[in-house]
């Protein structure tokens, strides 16, 4: 449909080669075709390797043997399948609902209202995105654990011996998973709220709606596409997540569907085939979900509020509620950032895992931090990691601007593009890493062991995440702007560059930041693909984690999170300053 509009005005044909002729005739189809080719080249090899691995017997020497369905039957015949399935649904459902409500409300407060302390919300997001996942979970388990400060305080105050809060429950799992996903959800919603036209909210206020009514009836419906996208996204990711459920659930014997994957991966040699089969089953299940989701966003034009009419969003005056909003942001800052960071600082500054008590203050030492700063090779690791993260973020964001636009505009081939781009989300990190390793070893050029193979893996990894930002961003931009540009003779590429990209800049900034910060955290892929000369920060972290140097790991993670925060902060300011013009800020 958009193709017809965009092709309506064709420049006069000249003596161009065929490709250019085609580009002139049906420009969107050509771009779409090019992107399908690019994405197929990126995504199909890992998928095929995954399929092959899940369907063949692994020989001890690394080669593949006969056809088998054993990997699938093992998953479907695991004991208590229904119990695990029910646990999974509860865990994924609870986490999704909690993170959506809190994340959306927080983003709205920050982007739309005059609540104070907005900067803290961004600080919280950036630092917690930069904090390695294993540390974050460890910090939470420490805080909420049996001997953690929370239960300790409760016992001291009440003189009882029981627990106030048992973290090793479905609720504990969901709570920690909520904290883990908060930054992504906040960033996604803040991009959506920043771009959405504020006129309707202003109209609601003028017509006498209360702030609450306006939030539920105007603000939330306006970002409905973002809401649906985020909900889908978080739900799918928690379905396949196994780290939090294992770390939190195992001590209480709570199993989820993916628990089995974790153990299969930890076997020596890791049973990746089993994990691959699980991914394939998930891909099948989620394809169905995607169809439903596609139907949902079919009428997405209704939500486009960035139109040709000029507007300049004004923050909504919350009145006396302003301080309540500020308090909410403060609580977020306190709970999502301060508490885990304080726990990490404590772990890093004590020579062994000591309970957080006054009497233990005498233990405090800088030993673990000194060990981090004495190690000069970390500089090389850091520069490798930052290079990989910047390259992966830039490439992934570039690809997904085009894909996001094509899918939001339902260009020919967009369903395929969407499916291709979503797939890597369902590959557990190590399964992806192993697939990319096999690709790297088999291609005729020497990419194996270099940082470029890592960057390649992270582009694949980042596409689904980045796409959620750009896709929902494009949905908000009304077609009329593009139609106007097309009628004035702009080619689709010009249109993307001159209209879409500037209007999309909040989403682009969020996507880039998210990918950049995530790369440093993803251990499994990095560690598997790092050669002796392409070692990353993850390698050092892995070394400390497996060798039980909890204190040094925490110190290292804090220093790293600090560095990433600075780098991301600079990038953020830079990108916003250079793109701010589009939004009059």
């Amino acid at each position: 449909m958009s193709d017809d509009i965009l092709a309506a005005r064709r420049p006069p044909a000249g003596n161009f080669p065929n490709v250019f002729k085609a580009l002139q005739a049906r420009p969107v189809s050509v771009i779409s075709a090019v992107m399908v080719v690019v994405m197929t080249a990126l995504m199909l090899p890992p998928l095929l390797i995954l399929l092959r691995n899940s369907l063949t017997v692994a020989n001890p020497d690394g080669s593949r043997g006969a056809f088998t369905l054993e990997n699938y039957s093992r998953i479907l015949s695991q004991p208590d399948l229904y119990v695990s399935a029910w646990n999974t649904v509860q865990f994924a459902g609870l986490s999704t609902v909690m993170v959506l409500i809190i994340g959306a409300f927080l983003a709205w407060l920050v982007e739309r209202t005059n609540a104070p302390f907005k900067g803290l919300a961004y600080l919280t997001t950036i630092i917690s995105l930069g904090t390695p996942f294993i540390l974050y979970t460890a910090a939470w388990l420490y805080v909420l654990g049996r001997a953690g400060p929370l239960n300790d305080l409760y016992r001291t105050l009440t003189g009882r011996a029981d627990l106030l809060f048992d973290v090793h429950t479905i609720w504990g799992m969901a709570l920690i998973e909520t904290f883990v996903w908060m930054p992504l959800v906040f960033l996604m919603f803040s991009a959506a709220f920043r771009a959405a036209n504020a006129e309707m909210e202003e109209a609601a206020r003028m017509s006498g709606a209360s702030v609450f009514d306006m939030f539920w009836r105007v603000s939330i419906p306006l970002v409905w596409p973002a809401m649906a996208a985020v909900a889908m996204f978080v739900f799918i990711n928690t379905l396949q997540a196994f780290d939090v459920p294992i770390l939190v659930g195992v001590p209480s014997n709570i199993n989820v569907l993916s628990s089995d994957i974790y153990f299969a991966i930890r076997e020596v040699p890791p049973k990746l085939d089993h994990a691959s089969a699980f991914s394939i089953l998930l891909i099948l299940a989620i394809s169905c979900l995607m169809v439903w989701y596609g139907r949902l966003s079919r009428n997405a034009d209704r939500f486009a509020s960035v139109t040709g009419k000029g507007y300049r969003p004004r923050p909504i005056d919350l009145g006396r509620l302003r301080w309540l909003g500020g308090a909410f942001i403060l609580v977020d800052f306190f709970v999502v950032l301060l508490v885990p960071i304080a726990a990490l600082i404590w772990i890093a500054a004590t020579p062994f895992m000591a309970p957080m008590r006054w009497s233990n203050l005498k233990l405090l030492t800088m030993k673990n931090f000194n060990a981090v700063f004495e190690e000069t090779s970390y500089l090389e690791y850091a520069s490798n990691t930052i290079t990989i993260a910047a390259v992966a973020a830039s490439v992934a964001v570039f690809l997904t601007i085009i894909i996001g636009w094509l899918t939001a505009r339902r260009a020919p081939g967009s369903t395929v593009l969407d499916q291709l781009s979503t797939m890597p989300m369902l590959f557990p990190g190590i399964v992806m890493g192993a697939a990319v390793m096999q690709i790297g070893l088999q291609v005729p050029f020497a990419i194996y062991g270099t940082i470029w193979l890592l960057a390649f893996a992270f582009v694949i990894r980042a596409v689904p995440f980045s796409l959620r930002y750009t896709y929902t961003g494009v949905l908000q931009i009304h077609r009329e702007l593009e139609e106007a540009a097309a009628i004035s003779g702009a080619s689709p590429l010009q249109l993307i560059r001159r209209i879409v990209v500037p209007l999309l800049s909040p989403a682009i900034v969020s996507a880039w930041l998210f990918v950049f910060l995530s790369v440093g955290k993803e251990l499994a892929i990095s560690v598997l693909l790092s050669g002796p000369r392409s070692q990353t920060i993850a390698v050092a972290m892995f070394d400390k984690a497996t060798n039980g140097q909890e204190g040094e790991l925490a110190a290292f993670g804090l220093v790293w999170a600090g560095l990433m925060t600075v780098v991301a902060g600079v990038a953020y300011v830079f990108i916003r300053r250079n793109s701010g013009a589009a939004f009059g800020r």
Partner: protein
Amino acid sequence: MLQAKLWMAAIVAAMSLSSVSARAESDPALIAAAKAEGTVTWASGLIVNQAVRPVAAAFEKKYGIHVEIATADNLLLRMTNEASAGKPTIDIFDNAGDTISAMRAADLIVPYASPETARYRPEHKDPENYWASCCVFFYTVAINTEMVKPEDEPKSYEDLLDPKWKDKMVWQNNENFAGPPSFIGARLISMGEEAGTAYLEKLSKQNITRVPGNARKALDQVILGQYPLAITALNHHVVISSSQGAPVKWLKIGPVASTAETVGLVKGAAHPNAAKLLFDYLLSAEGQNVLREANYLPADPNVPAKVPELKPEQGGFTAVPILPSMNQEQLPKWLEIYKRLFVAN
């Protein structure tokens, strides 16, 4: 060119060997060939900044051969994939897990008769010379001394069956020899199949909490006071923490399960001679002393641990060696017992 280099190297090597020592020494021809290769890639499961870099630095200083340090995560996955693509990047590796036996089963390592292994205990070297151990580990019972009074300390494995320990014990949820399976193995070997199985059945009623992660994670739960007793803690971890003031102590309840960090040489490696030389160096008295300084327990019977009582010889406790070969033969059975008795309930 290479010839000339080899000759030069041989002369240098011969000169450095002018003083004949009583200790085992690497073959001069090997040293020369290793120097001609100039570099070696080593993937080690030991702590990089405390053990691997000091060993690498000492080796580089001694022989002038550069050591590239590769990460040891998912070593087997990496090495098997590299092997099947015909591009091995790692020359020598060490690992506390079952990598060595899996590599042996896949025929991806080569034997090497190191002159250093002669004095090593039989359980720390392969009769066919495919591997040797550079450090040893002992999985012992550890308690939180603030939570367990001296008179309540268990004195034997039978004592762990006391109702007072129900719901109070932890171990790491590792489904390999770095976790409960080696404890299970040690009981079956030391008590005999029948008595061992009966003991384990009783122990399973104690409801031991599984901690996801490694031995250190489980021990940290005890140090932190979440649980009073860990069943399979590494005794050198306990000593590292207690020397810094942690309220924790390991108990000499024998026989304990003992595993080892095993070293192997990769088949088709790019630097086979430098790898052999590093193999020798790791097992030499010099290399063993570097590992000892990093708080590891040297496998060399002549090199005591930093805290001597951590090793059975000086500590006066007994150990059951859990050998790499047991991965194929016994692990599946022990794992089945673990899952049936301690996971499923």
